[in-house]
């Protein structure tokens, strides 16, 4: 009996020791999370949001190597708060809801830059285009979870957002700011 207990204990110890170094799994809390994008119209900010998106993360802020981040965005949940514009962005020239209803960002390369600042290098898939993108973020841990916050600039032209005559950037600017705040809870 003692032997069995010892054996079980050893097994447990081994399992723990042999487990590869990796961070905890995190799940997004949609209620506390926000994904915004700010386009420009005649050099004036034109903000919008993606109402539906999800982030999954395996991350240890102290040991970011071996981490991974997986974000899916329901492109069709875009809302720019202007009825005419919301109608327009569905079309093929813009987001093409019918052809590309979902966007993704995947990274397995998360690094600390300094203090609580990190950068996730990965691939953004949007409207059928895959492009390497760097997503800088800050990490703020708390008792019941953590918050990831960051901002990056995306060139809409690289993803064919605004094609044909809309590709010109004098009326609708070339740069789109993407801002996110993701509230996370440890999963499991």
């Amino acid at each position: 009996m003692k032997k069995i207990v010892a054996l079980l204990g050893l097994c447990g110890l081994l399992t723990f020791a042999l487990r590869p170094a990796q961070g905890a799994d995190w799940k997004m809390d949609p209620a506390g999370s926000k994904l915004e994008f700010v386009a420009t119209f005649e050099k004036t900010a034109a903000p919008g949001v993606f109402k539906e998106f999800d982030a999954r993360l395996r991350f240890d802020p102290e040991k970011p190597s071996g981490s991974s981040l997986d974000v899916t965005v329901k492109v069709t949940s875009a809302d720019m708060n202007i009825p005419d514009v919301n109608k327009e962005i569905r079309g093929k020239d813009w987001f093409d809801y019918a052809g590309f209803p979902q966007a993704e960002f995947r990274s397995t390369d998360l690094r600390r830059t300094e203090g609580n600042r990190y950068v996730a290098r990965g691939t953004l898939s949007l409207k059928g285009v895959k492009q390497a993108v760097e997503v800088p973020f800050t990490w703020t841990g708390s008792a019941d979870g953590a918050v990831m916050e960051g901002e990056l600039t995306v060139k809409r032209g690289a993803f064919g957002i605004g094609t044909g005559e809309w590709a010109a950037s004098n009326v609708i600017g070339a740069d789109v700011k993407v801002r996110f705040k993701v509230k996370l809870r440890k999963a499991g």
Partner: protein
Amino acid sequence: MLRNTADSWGAPAKLFHWVMAALILAQIALGVMAASWRVSPAKLELFFWHKSTGMLILALVALRLLWRLANPTPALPSGMAAWERAAARLSHLLLYVLMIALPITGWIVNSASNIPFRIFWLVPLPAIVAPDESTAGLAALVHGGLFALLALVLAAHIGAALRHHFVKRNTVLIRMLPGTSRTP
């Protein structure tokens, strides 16, 4: 002469009249083109210039009204019938009302549509009503109706000025032209 007299317009009054006449004609062309263009960057550009010009007109009409109130208004020629005087007063009053009401209803359309806008890329235009689709639709309807009224009053105004000059042969048109500060 800067100030108006009992029978002549001063230089500022003339400048206001002709600058705003040019702006209003340009504004009508921009508005008609913007409204009828298919959805395209060109349409947005037309609306941008239409809105910027509209806000410029609103600012100018405020200054113009102050100037008008601070100066005597040259008298209408003697020998005009009562209905002609009434028509002149009413059409001038309507022009002032429209120069204010058209930009303001346009402003309401822009606010209710929640469209971010900076006048000539410079001055952010604050919203005067909350975003609401039905408000935007109603204000656009009123804006269009006021434009139709403006077209009628402008036709009457220009027609009357030409009638004063060619039919009644008085100085009403001449005295608004630049460089005619002295009345004959």
